[in-house]
């Protein structure tokens, strides 16, 4: 397994013209299915949110009860006291269908990715920080490098840097499971079978509020992710994630 691509990641050994696979087919396919589902979930999630842009804590909350906070936008339902005279068009029908369908596709895709990761070595090789990086010193150097907007080295075209690894691990093992959990905790049928899923979150409205904040965290990750791809060389990074190819000598962007 540890042939050309892996050898290339030790910077000194980068061959001048070799074109090798940066990302496996499985990583590339699951990445783009996830991207597509993420946008579908985001659009439909916003669509569902505007029917009731008010948030609560605990079990219950409605137009007659105090809020935890409100999003200052008009709603798609007439009776929601938003302070606007305008009622947005209602699209919850397809919004909900699309939200749950994309959720299914992304969860199954994520499962495929997670299971294959156990066998392919992707987790150990690409995501878990290398031995030399497992220290506060390595962590603070990586942060300082990022704060100085230091250009990524040649080696980084071939492997993820420490902060990148930590953020991917955080998204895969913390944010994704949380967003699925808080989503399921809002389902009256699911929690009838697994009441603890909502009870430990403090109630159904708490689950909804947490779902909103975890989604915000995922959007924040997306913005930083796309920003870093841009900074590191948009064309070469996109080519690597689409075709799998990354010409080692073409870090010109």
């Amino acid at each position: 397994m540890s042939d050309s691509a892996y050898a290339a990641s030790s910077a000194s050994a980068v061959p001048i013209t070799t074109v090798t696979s940066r990302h496996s087919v499985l990583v590339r396919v699951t990445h783009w299915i996830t991207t597509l589902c993420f946008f579908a979930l985001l659009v439909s999630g916003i669509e569902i949110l505007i029917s009731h842009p008010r948030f609560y804590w605990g079990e219950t909350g409605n137009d007659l009860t105090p809020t935890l906070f409100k999003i200052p936008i008009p709603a798609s339902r007439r009776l929601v006291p938003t302070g606007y005279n305008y009622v947005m068009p209602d699209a919850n029908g397809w919004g909900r269908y699309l939200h749950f369908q994309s959720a299914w596709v992304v969860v199954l895709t994520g499962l495929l990715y997670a299971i294959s990761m156990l066998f392919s070595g992707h987790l150990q090789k690409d995501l878990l920080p290398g031995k030399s990086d497992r220290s506060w010193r390595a962590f603070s150097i990586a942060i300082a490098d990022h704060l100085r907007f230091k250009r990524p080295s040649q080696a980084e075209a071939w492997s993820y840097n420490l902060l990148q690894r930590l953020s991917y691990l955080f998204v895969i093992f913390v944010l994704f499971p949380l967003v699925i959990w808080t989503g399921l905790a809002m389902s009256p049928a699911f929690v009838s079978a697994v009441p603890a899923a909502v009870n430990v979150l403090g109630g159904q409205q708490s689950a909804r509020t947490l779902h909103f904040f975890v989604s915000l965290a995922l959007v924040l990750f997306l913005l930083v992710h796309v920003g870093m791809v841009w900074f590191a060389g948009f064309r070469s990074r996109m080519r690597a994630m689409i075709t799998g190819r990354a010409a080692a000598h073409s870090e010109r962007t």
Partner: protein
Amino acid sequence: MSERPSNPSRHDPSRRKLITTGLAAAAGVAGLGVAARLAQKYGLVPPDHGGIYGLGETLTYASQRLLTRHSLAREFSRSQISERPFPNEIEPPTDEFKRLQAGRFAEWRLSVNGMVARPASFSLDQLKSYPSHTQITMLQCEEGWSYIAEWIGVPLSQVLDVVGILPQARYVVYFSIEPDTWESIDMADALHPQTFLTYGMNGDELPVGHGGPLRLRLPRQVGYKNVKFLTHLTVTDSMKGFGKGLGGASPEFGYAWYAGI
């Protein structure tokens, strides 16, 4: 897995790959066919399974039906009952409703027909003559808001027992006095102990704003399946022949038939 430059000494990898891929695809298609037939047989396919969102809808319904067939919706303590239950917007009442309301709903009827041994029509007093049940459960609107209330009524299964459902029954279709307002549920939900024909709320009559005098209470599905002003039930083995065959007014309006999520 040969996206890396392939080893020229290997025996014709492209051909082997082609055969493997072909076999995998054939197995996949056959597997899907078998899965679809099994799902159909065990009643895991919702009436609105067609169209571009049919996949997600079927996966949700099938998996929740397998996981939650007998599970009970969470019940709450009396102290958790919401002080301010929000009665959602209702259409202006029809003349027929106003007439019945003027008579204090004494003439309100719930008729039951279809695949039943003894079609019948029940007055509210008749429904109240059965042992009354209560549940303190949450009503959740698909929009995102919710409240907890005590609901008083008779389990739908009690009335279905009285009329005697035939063995081939698969759905109960329920209609409101409001025009074009009807939904349906499968037998798992129809016979579920928390599915109520509800006539009371928080120790009192069920207010008109909350669907009084009679509302279907279905705490494991969101608000729009909890139809207000119930007047008629039909037991059937197929949703074909009811509107567009999608299982209710909501699916025809673009909303999922199964609303356990």
